[in-house]
């Protein structure tokens, strides 16, 4: 342990005293635009996938099988999330897979809920495969939130940990919403109110008014406010899975 708190305070003061440019713009720039002296303000949408019951999964004696499942789970979710030019950050944090997008239009947000539908359908496929290998099924919570966020590069100049901090209701809320998915009475895809308002009219249009509104349940949380959950799948994909494993 070698933390020098006097040096620490100096660094805190340096940061406090340095001028930060806050640039308000439509799109979050690529990594190289960020310095330790600036910040960006933009609309972003975050998607988090949080594995339910990782304890049960861990308790399974066959760790080889479990490792493979996990690898399949993460790599496919990354594939689904990766497929987008607006992607600005993707990765794994502990036991969550997450992706952050810059979003300027409702169409771009619709692309993201569409990814959630794919992930939700994919979980069905994965569970069928697990059944074949006699592993008990797993589920996940998918959280999405959109907000105008302040993005700064944190970490330390020399530490190699140069993560961006996303300040606002997108990333934090998506992470918290994902923890609620597929638990109690909440369905697997959990979305914040602002995101819901961004995607619902497009979804109504795409489904030709088959009663989309009734597919969503409304919830309320002291910290997160109003949010919605649904368990929508991609019909064609889902039917293919059902047929294949019949």
């Amino acid at each position: 342990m070698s933390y020098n708190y006097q040096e620490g305070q100096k660094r805190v003061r340096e940061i406090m005293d340095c001028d930060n440019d806050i640039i308000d713009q439509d799109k979050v720039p690529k990594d190289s635009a960020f310095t330790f002296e600036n910040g960006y303000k933009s609309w972003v949408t975050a998607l988090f996938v949080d594995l339910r019951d990782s304890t049960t999964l861990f308790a399974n004696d066959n760790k080889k099988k479990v490792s493979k499942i996990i690898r399949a789970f993460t790599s496919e979710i990354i594939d689904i999330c990766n497929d987008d030019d607006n992607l600005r950050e993707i990765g794994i944090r502990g036991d969550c897979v997450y992706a952050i997008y810059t979003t300027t239009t409702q169409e771009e947000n619709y692309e993201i809920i569409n990814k959630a539908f794919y992930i939700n359908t994919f979980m069905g496929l994965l569970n069928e495969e697990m059944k074949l290998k006699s592993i008990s099924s797993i589920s996940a919570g998918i959280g999405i939130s959109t907000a105008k966020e302040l993005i700064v590069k944190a970490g330390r100049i020399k530490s190699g940990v140069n993560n961006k901090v996303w300040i606002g209701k997108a990333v934090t809320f998506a992470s918290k919403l994902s923890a609620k998915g597929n638990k109690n009475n909440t369905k697997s895809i959990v979305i914040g109110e602002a995101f819901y308002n961004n995607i619902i009219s497009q979804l109504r249009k795409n489904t030709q008014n088959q009663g989309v509104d009734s597919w969503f349940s409304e919830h309320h949380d002291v910290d997160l406010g109003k949010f919605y959950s649904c368990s929508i799948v991609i019909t064609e994909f889902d039917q293919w899975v059902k047929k294949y494993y019949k």
Partner: protein
Amino acid sequence: MYDYRQAKKDILSILNSKTEIMKCAAIPKADSTLTYENGIKAWTAAIFVDIIKSTEIFKNEKEERVARVMRAFTSEIISILSSDDKYRQIGIRGDCVFGIYSAENKEDLVELFRHAYLINTFLLMLNKTLEENGFFSLSAGIGLGCSEELIVKAGKKGSGINDVIWIGDAVVDASNLSGMANRGGIEAIAMTRLFYTNIIDILKDENKNYSIWIKEKTGFYGNEGYYHCNIVQTDFDKWIDEGMKI
């Protein structure tokens, strides 16, 4: 768009690939030990630092100031967490800073506990510095957990995303406890029972008062017991009290 037929093939190739599970006392440092064909089972400890009411604070403050405070907060906590060669992943998840450590023996857990109270003390210094400079203050909850975890290199060959995913209780518990600590009568540092039972004897040898300073509480995951405290690093704390002279 996402090709689920290809996905099915990818999954099968993962599920059918040979996977070696190595049981390790210490989690290997070099990422190269973990491949897409193996997994590791090892004792792991995790710490999460969660800012309380972050969205509310950030809503009411000038962005430029928020950016500075967040940069100071995250960079110093990362600095504390990385001053230990047992760390295996440090990052930012939403508005939490977290660290995951290899914990082959009790001393490693004690060391992580020391990081926790150092962070607790650092926050006093940060807040005092913020106050002196006319900034708003921040508070945070610190959560600690440990367990034997399954560690799998996730992501995808050739994708550039090759993060590691941690399956087990340590990460989940630390994250959940950080969301409870420093709120509603719970002190700033909260840890699981398992974490506590592993560190308390060593701490008592140093100062028997540790068993008074760290108190028991129930109510984690319903009615599980956990422990909480508000310990600070004495010399650092004294220096803050005496006016932080450099």
